[in-house]
């Protein structure tokens, strides 16, 4: 997947799952605030990434994912080789 494809797909998934308009997503926006994630729904973000890409996000790594760009980066760098 190209980075553009990842961004498009991730935005669509997040918009569907958390019911927030993808037009409000910006690479530097805070992902927790934009998606209104609390400590419980943050687990759904982890589950969504795991179920879609089979990529596990450990808690220590999750702390580093603050923006949408951080999430795209994480997925791009952990995608299994095609």
């Amino acid at each position: 997947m190209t980075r553009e494809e990842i961004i498009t797909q991730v935005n669509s998934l997040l918009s569907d799952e958390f019911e927030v308009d993808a037009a409000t997503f910006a690479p530097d926006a805070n992902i927790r605030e934009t998606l209104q994630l609390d400590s419980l729904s943050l687990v759904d973000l982890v589950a969504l990434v795991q179920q879609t890409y089979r990529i596990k996000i450990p808690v220590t790594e999750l702390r580093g994912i603050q923006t949408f760009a951080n999430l795209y980066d994480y997925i791009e760098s952990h995608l299994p080789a095609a």
Partner: protein
Amino acid sequence: MEHRVVITGMGIWSCLGTTLDEVRDSLYTGKSGIAFSQEHKDAGFRSALCSTIAQPDLKPLVPRNLRQFMPEEAQYAYMSTRQALENAKLDIDYIAQHEVGLIFGNDSTAEATVNAIDKFRDFHDTAACGSGSIFQSMNSTVTMNLACLFKLKGINLTASAACASGSQAIGLGSLLIRNGLQECVVCGGAQEANMFSVAAFDGLQSFSVREDQPSQASRPFDRDRDGLVPGGGAATVILESYEHAVRRGAPILGEIISWGFSSNGDHISTPNVEDPARSLELCLKNGGVSPDEIGYINAHATSTKIGDAREAQAIARIFGDRRVPVTSTKSQTGHEMWMAGASELIYSMLMMKNDFIAGSLNFENPDDDTACINILPECQEVHFDMFLSNSFGFGGTNSTIIVKNL
């Protein structure tokens, strides 16, 4: 001091409709809510009959982060409880300032549990279950969700008593009000209607196999009955002390006169006669009610050979030759299980308030065991002011409630 317990609101989400008016009309016209499910058949069910229930759209009503905690049965219960609170004229401001309790009957969360465990096994990671799974898969899921959504501050309890759960919930709620421990309690029953919840039940060969005639499959007390049909949905009643209802100007629909209960202490699935009969007897005694005062009996009868036979004999033992009209609304709805005690109380209330008794569909011929009671096969326009509702469940749990018209 004992307090009188009155019903001030009702709400229903069932295969007979999703409003009280719709359900009243379905009862009156003898509509069947039962259908053949190809999904069940393809999955390997022996009997693919089930009730057809509208799926509520909660998206405009409950935010995503709260909806995430709600399995199917909690969604049904949310819809029935919204209606009941509105029906009782209990708004969010009043609830915020008063202690309103909550007791609901529920006895399974199969689909939520299956979904969570499937993800866990697939990904070998507990986080894959998602945030809602634990809250969806606990047996108290209905009460934990409703209490948070409606901001209820009184007792918060799930009653698990198999197919008597809804009735026991109403019995418990009425007891708390009668004793002055609560002034208002939201009571009801909820039943998930997905195939995971009843697959093992189908495995017991308990369901009717009359798949080519879905509307004729549930035939309580009839000679040719061959098993039950699983149903689902949710039903809510608002119970209050009479003083509380009068004080806030609530509509008063009926009065819970008494609750009776018993346990068979016997076989896990085969009922007997004497212990269900004790539940009826105790209910009459607790309310100081003579059998002559009962104008209608809403039977538990699910359309199984032994269950219907034993209940008929239990009713006959208590009511003798009085010929009180008896029907089973499960002939229209199938067996609504954890919800049934609450929904059938509402069905009976709708009949009592509208002067009719819905016919027991498909009752064509009694057998030697069921000929001892007066089963009405067709709808009758008749006035009555007091009814008795039976609910019996696996493990031999029995619950009976008597309600009076007000």
